[in-house]
């Protein structure tokens, strides 16, 4: 049975959480033994996972900084997880203290933690909601109190959509957000994936550990990720391997970057 949106979520510390595993991979201590156990097992099979996590976080930083240069001052961070370091509001408000951010996550612990950290910051809200339900998310007071939907807003889906299967209609979810946004708004998106034939047996094994203990994943190739930008004009260089998106230095490119297991892109909602 579907849980009504206002019914309380389950808090089961016996199960690892996506947000806390992610925090551990980024070097945080907002996690429990069960989360670290899964992270370690995954890292043993595929040490690159840690670097991958860092790259998604770095893409977030580069994308937000890019958006700030384009004048965007409103952000919706979907699947924001545990606020480790280098969070969207820190990046944005360092440039413009008036920048506003709404964090959205389903994990009640991540949300509680975020709220306690952000207490007193009038330009940040934390919403506990299922990001797959754009209608409820966009109807929430957290969104409507803080954001001005007549002005451009950047919707961030960082390291998110590999947790959303095709059956769950990611295009429809994105459209749900896109249709509420003013022209000139943006979608920043990154997710794990390979081009056809690149997945190695080691990666498959690591994925299966993760899927067994945490959650299912849906990997997509660059063409599939590009399709997710329906209704957006892709900003140069389009959908590329994560390190290749607006690299900050020569180390972000090269052999390792070329094989990186994940794609990212930034799209701008077309003017009507």
């Amino acid at each position: 049975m579907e849980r009504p949106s206002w019914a309380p979520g389950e808090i089961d510390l016996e199960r690892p959480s996506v947000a806390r595993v992610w925090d551990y991979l980024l070097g945080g201590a907002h996690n429990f033994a069960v989360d670290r156990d899964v992270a370690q097992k995954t890292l043993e099979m595929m040490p690159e996972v840690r670097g991958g996590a860092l790259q998604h976080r770095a893409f977030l930083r580069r994308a937000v900084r890019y958006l700030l240069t384009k004048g965007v001052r409103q952000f919706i961070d979907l699947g924001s997880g545990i606020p480790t370091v280098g969070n969207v509001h820190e990046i944005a408000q360092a440039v413009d203290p008036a920048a506003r951010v709404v964090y959205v996550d389903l994990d009640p612990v991540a949300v509680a933690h975020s709220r306690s950290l952000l207490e007193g910051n009038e330009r940040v809200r934390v919403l506990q909601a299922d990001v797959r339900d754009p209608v409820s998310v966009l109807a929430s007071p957290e969104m409507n109190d803080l954001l001005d939907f007549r002005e451009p807003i950047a919707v961030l889906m960082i390291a998110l959509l590999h947790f959303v299967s095709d059956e769950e209609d990611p295009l429809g979810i994105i459209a749900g957000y896109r249709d509420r946004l003013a022209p000139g708004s943006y979608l920043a998106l990154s997710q794990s994936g390979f081009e056809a034939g690149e997945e190695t047996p080691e990666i498959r094994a690591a994925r299966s550990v993760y899927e067994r203990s945490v959650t299912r994943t849906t990997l997509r190739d660059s063409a599939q990720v590009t399709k997710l930008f329906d209704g957006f004009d892709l900003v140069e260089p389009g959908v590329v391997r994560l390190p290749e998106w607006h690299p900050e230095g020569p180390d972000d490119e090269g052999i390792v970057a070329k094989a990186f297991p994940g794609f990212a892109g930034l799209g701008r909602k077309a003017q009507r």
Partner: protein
Amino acid sequence: MTERVDHRVRDDRSPLSPAVLAGAASFARSWATAVIGSSYVPMTRAEVAQHLQDLTEMLVEALYASPFRTAPGYEIGSRLVDAHFTGTDTLGRTVQLLGDDLLAELGATGDDRLQSRLAALQGALSAGYARALRERTLAEQEAIRAAVLDARDQAEAMLRASEARFRAMFTEAAIGIGIADIEGRILDVNQALQDMLGFSVDEMRQYNVRDLMHPEDAGSVWRLYDQLIAGECDHYRAEKRFHRADGEQVWTHLTLSLVRDDHGEPQYQVAMIEDVTDRHLLQNRLRYQALHDPLTGLPNRALFLERLGRVFNNRGKHLRAGLCYLDLDGFKVINDSLGHDIGDQLLVEVGRRLDHSVSGEGKLVARMGGDEFVILVEGSAGEQDIVDVADRVLTELEAPIRIAGHELSVSASIGIVERQLSGTTSADLMRDADITLYWAKADGKARWALYDPERNAREVARFTLSATMPRALERGEFYVEYQPLVRLEDSTVTGVEALVRWQHPEFGRLAPDRFIELAEETGLIVPLGRWVLRKACEEARRWLEEFGDAAPFVSVNLAVRQSRDPELVRDVKRILDECALPPHHLQLELTESAIMGTADEPLEALRALCDMGVRIAIDDFGTGYSNLAYLKHLPVHELKIAGSFMEGLRAENEEDPVDSQIVATLVQLAHALSLGVTAEGVETPAQAARLLRLGCDTGQGWFFARPGPPENIDSLLRGDL
């Protein structure tokens, strides 16, 4: 999110030489490469390099400082953690890189004093890093645990709130809600349901759902219940009655839903019960109003037809049924003269008397509208049952009805139909009762008439005839036969009577008695009579041409309605002219009543015809009531004595003295008035002989000839016979 990286730019008053600074920068680059990627640091590579260069310069300053202190090393370790260089490899790589490369980069390899100082700073850096990381880790662990507690509190608060909401919804709902387990044990009921049924929660908990069965429950209610309990359906709706604690009944709309556990097994049943008693009673009242006559309170036409329909649908219950279709006689007069109010009160009293006289199982009195009532008797044994009912009703209505000082006598006419239900329909029954009521009226009112299929068939035939007559005339289905009028004295044919016949395509050859009366009713007699007149005159003209002085006149019957037709004289004249027939070759026969009982106009028409030279005969003389004094003044030439008087003269051996005397008197009367006399219905030689003896002038009848085609007359005139 609270940490702020220290990006302070070092002041330029560095005591270090440019060479040392260059070495420090070179070391910082190596350091950055060694530690980047071990944890997430929210800086670009350039920012990381700058940050590490600052720390390197701080370290180098400490290395050369006087007096030497290890505190900066401690500070550097702490700052690494602040910048989130928290990866497990960071410290190891840093310490190793310091030992391996720093002095070489500074160009101080082999300087034991610096080597010693560096070792001390490495130790301090490690301690500072360890301490900061430990604090950070503990803080983050505490933060995440606090977040868990917050989230749990939040979840519990929401759970409590949601529980409170559900509880409020349950207790405050205006609709009755009850929950029972799958065995039917009632677990909880809300206030609305307690109020509805009049039982407390504790009392309700003593019950099983099946104890709430009501004898009027539709079978489907409990069949669906069994299916729901078995998990075969998830919910159903039904209309259901409940007994209240005080013995009253409650009509409800019930929705029963199945609640399943996580494995899909039936767990609870939830009933939502809405009290619709008021609506039900209102519906009953509306239904009553829709089915009853507001004036008399009797069932109305709709209810009657519904009941009658049911009688036919439940044919197994009763084999026969009967109807009395009743209509007050002269009600319109009462209504018109005394007013509708009196009329209405009269109807109320009549309704009351009907209801009073007809009571009991299987009997229904209904007001059909106006002053029409109907009585339905189900399961009658035969016609007599209904006749008894009708007699009772007529008797009951005999006593005068007193209304507002008026003493009103009413009577009613009743049509009765009683028959087996098989082979008939409710519509047949109604129609036949209606027809029979009409008969009762036509037969004189204040009586009942019993449906008679033969009478009905006759009437239907009459109706069919009258309906088809106009076309029959157009299609030439009528023809004329002629019967000779014979002078008794010498057996000469002096005239012929024209008799119209109808060759009906369905009923065959029809005599005038079958259709003349109908033609009179419909008015078709006028065109038909005119047609016969023309036909006869044409024939008379032919005979005149053929037989000269020996040609007979034609005698044509004139119906009452024709005699009153203002066009009569003109029609006759025109036809005579067109046929070029001398008027004295035409005789018109009228009945006594047509001549006697009329006003002046027809008489004038007769005079006009008489003056024209047309002969006038009184047909069937002696059967009506002739005013003999008046007779003297009438323009009449001939009396035709009705055939009924010939009966007594019929036998060869003896004659009836009365009939004989009557005929003799009629002949004398006619002769006294200078009228000719024709005897009709002469069938035997004895009759002809006696009539001659009595002085009768002319005879007509089978004894001389039956009516036949004009050719027969030709033969007679030629003396062929």
